[in-house]
């Protein structure tokens, strides 16, 4: 927290030549500022014109990665808030399939989606192919931090955390830092997702060299790399492996169910920010805007978090924002998606090399 809110550090970063790390540092400062001071800037009521236009459209089709039961909760919350506007939640649980599906629909001119929520890399891919609409989000009351680009709004965050089985690791023995995970005692005992995303995000703060060095030593620890983050969380919850790196919103299910598992946000904390966008060919563009506006408000963000366990880093009322208080947040800014995409395959190779 101290580091995040250190304005001199931010100023120093801003004064440096334009490099990916400088950009990331600026984003980090922005996130720090957001976490420290933001009451969500979105107003509690939508602009009247937007609401009326959305009501005339009558419905919004939302492609999102939550499972159908969760989608039903979101539908209920939205429709309760905006009577007369129907939310059709289409669950695309394999997030990787979202972009190709949207592009296929766009090509066939059969778009059914009005709004989507996906990762920054996917948003970038869609934007490059002209699939997204530009919206003046600032005039709708959103902050510049939330709406970094006119075609995307940060609406939720997936946070990578340290998971520990409390039945197997005493409080004193628990790792507290990234470096602690490299201790010999955890060799062969670490669960992780086979995707390098947390380390790629970490590079935005640590830099490429440091992450590569860390990954080599991490791979030497012979971590068990699961094909899905859920499996890593389950391995720690069941006690098959005592520690692991996982996604908060997936591991917290086991915590809530009473499993002997503790979650800790590391400093630096890698996160993947999820962005929402309105499709250019949306049949209900105003209803799409209204939905994204709502997700950006404390009311919408907390409703979304209640259903999905993923809060909004820019909405301090959410648990996610609370979780990230006091730690440095690592996430590449939008404009550095090329760097992200360049590092990811290399890191994937490093993780896989010695496993």
């Amino acid at each position: 927290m101290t580091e995040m809110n250190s304005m001199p550090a931010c100023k120093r970063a801003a004064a440096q030549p334009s490099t990916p790390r400088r950009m990331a540092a600026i984003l980090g400062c922005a996130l720090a500022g957001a976490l420290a001071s933001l009451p969500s800037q979105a107003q509690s009521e939508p602009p009247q014109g937007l609401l009326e236009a959305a009501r005339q459209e009558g419905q919004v089709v939302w492609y999102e990665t939550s499972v159908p039961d969760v989608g039903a909760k979101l539908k209920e919350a939205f429709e309760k808030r905006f009577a007369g506007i129907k939310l059709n939640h289409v669950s695309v649980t394999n997030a990787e399939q979202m972009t190709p599906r949207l592009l296929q629909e766009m090509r066939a001119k059969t778009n059914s989606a009005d709004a989507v929520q996906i990762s920054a890399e996917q948003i970038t891919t869609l934007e490059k192919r002209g699939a997204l609409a530009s919206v003046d989000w600032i005039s709708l009351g959103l902050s510049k931090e939330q709406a970094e680009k006119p075609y995307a709004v940060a609406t939720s965050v997936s946070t990578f955390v340290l998971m520990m089985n409390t039945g197997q690791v005493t409080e004193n023995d628990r790792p507290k830092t990234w470096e602690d995970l490299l201790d010999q005692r955890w060799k062969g005992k670490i669960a992780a997702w086979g995707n390098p995303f947390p380390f790629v995000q970490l590079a935005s703060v640590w830099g490429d060299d440091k992450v590569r060095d860390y990954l080599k030593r991490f791979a030497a620890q012979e971590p068990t790399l699961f094909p899905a983050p859920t499996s890593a969380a389950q391995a720690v919850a069941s006690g098959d492996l005592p520690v692991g790196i996982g996604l908060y919103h997936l591991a917290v299910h086991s915590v809530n169910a009473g499993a002997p598992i503790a979650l800790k946000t590391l400093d630096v904390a890698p996160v993947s920010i999820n962005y929402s966008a309105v499709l250019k060919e949306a049949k209900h563009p105003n209803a799409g805007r209204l939905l994204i506006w709502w997700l950006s408000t404390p009311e919408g963000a907390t409703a979304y978090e209640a259903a999905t366990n993923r809060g909004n880093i820019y909405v301090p009322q959410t648990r996610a924002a609370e979780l990230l208080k006091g730690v440095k947040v690592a996430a590449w800014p939008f404009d550095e998606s090329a760097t992200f995409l360049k590092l990811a395959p290399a890191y994937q190779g490093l993780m896989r090399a010695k496993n």
Partner: protein
Amino acid sequence: MISGTGMAAASAGAPGWRWRGPRLSAWSTAALGAILAWLIGVPLALMAISSLKPDGMVFDPGIVLDNYQTVIQDDMLAAVLRNTAVFVGASASIALVAAFALAWLTERTDMPCRRAVRAMTILPMAMPPLLLAMAWALLMSPRSGMVNGLIESLTGLRGVFDIFSMPGMVFVQTLSMIPTAYLILMSVIRNTSGELEEAARMCGAGFWKTLFRITLPLLAPGLIATALFLVIAGIATFDIPGTLGMPVGIFVVSSQIYQYVFLSVTGLPLYGQVGVIGVALVVLMLPLVYLYQRMTSNSGRFVTITGKGKGRSRIALGKFRYAALAGASVYFLLSTVLPIGVLLWVSLMPYQTGISAATLQLLTLDNHRALLSSTRLHEAVLNTFVSSAGAAVAVVAASVWLSFLIVRVRPWGYKAMNFASFMPLALPGVLLGVALTYVYLEVSPNLWFGSVGILIVAFATSYLTYGVQSLNSALIQSSRVLEEAAQMSGATLAMTLRRVSLPLLTPAMAGVGIWVFAHGLRELTLALMLQSDRNLTVSALLWGYWSNGNATGAAAVGVWLTAVMGVLVIIWQFVIDKEGGR
């Protein structure tokens, strides 16, 4: 008896034998050819095009060979191919031998409790492979596996079994393949007369001589088709190598496909590289299918159902009766009791944990309550039933039609039809989903896309190989004498089919129907790829629980799926018994 078989062979093998009504045959061939081209040809073409596109997106401009270069130059390729060969070769071989032994025991011997063994051999088919792998991870993890824990408490030896290894993958994959192999072989053996074996024994041949000189050669088409099916299906299987191999760095072709699609770090799945693997699988299948066609080309050699009636005597196992039952029981223990027991246990826990006295107090029905009160359960059950039953009917109907043309009518291009029927196996489920998305978005988005109908089409396409090869094997073994006799007596084609051919094929058709229905119940990849708010299935619901971190909820779905399958198997047994099965 021997002369009767010989006559049948001569008649069946005679080239140029035709159904009466060649025009009907021509129309039938043309219609079937068009359906195959649509169902299989179009997705295959799209896959091939995808492999040549920069981002794998079919309608993008430009043609490149980069995807081929990337796949070939992948440092891991040699290891992936080696692992795949070991994994598929070992699991398919063991599954084939075990399934043959089980089918032979239940259909041809006097082993006790045959009906129960038959049902219990098929039952594990209902369990999604993801949950089967999860159950075995809980049982045999070297660190916290229950079996290892038991061994340690008895002997002090730690981590005796390691399920996260190649032998572990082969073991679980074998268990999951046996029901499919058993279903094919059971109907083949059931359709095989025991007359020749009896004759061999009466001529003084011993057990092994009869087995190798009579039984196995007679069953060759079924055995070869089953082996081929197991090999190709094994290459495409992901859940088991993904759950048990990937975490410890053992990659096979299917994990590589998963990596390209679901662990892609480019913002787009690497469909182009998946397409390359799909094209390679098609190329790999060419010699295998050619070999199969060569080996089964003289179908008269394998005819064992004639007008002479079936031999009904069973081989007496004598003192080995109960040893055989014990062997079958071991399989039942490993394939059903242990994994389903663990699954049931997990479904009764608030979170995933092992079996111990300490965790007994955690027992709860919450997962089952949550499932049964799920707002979308009823809709998912209905969609699942309709899509699985629809696919089962479609596959059985198309397979009967196709097999008759391939085995009986043999019109121009029948070899191509047979080859085409193998092709869906070479299409990774992900690519089939993508291809169907393209096709139905272009053709009729509102009617088809996102509907239950598209699931039926997808499932039927994916499972057509199994249906056609099962019925081909059964038809090859069935003489044309009976059909010819019916036609010579004035029966129409429809009457011959209804009164003679189809009744002979009933066990095989029922087996195909059950297999497709069960696989439809648990089909995940296609259900997720084609999912909309109108066609949610139970397996998608299961995936929802699992991917949301709720493994115990997913286990509850698995328990119910297995229970439904159990009821279905019992009904099926009842039908078979009524048809004269034993």
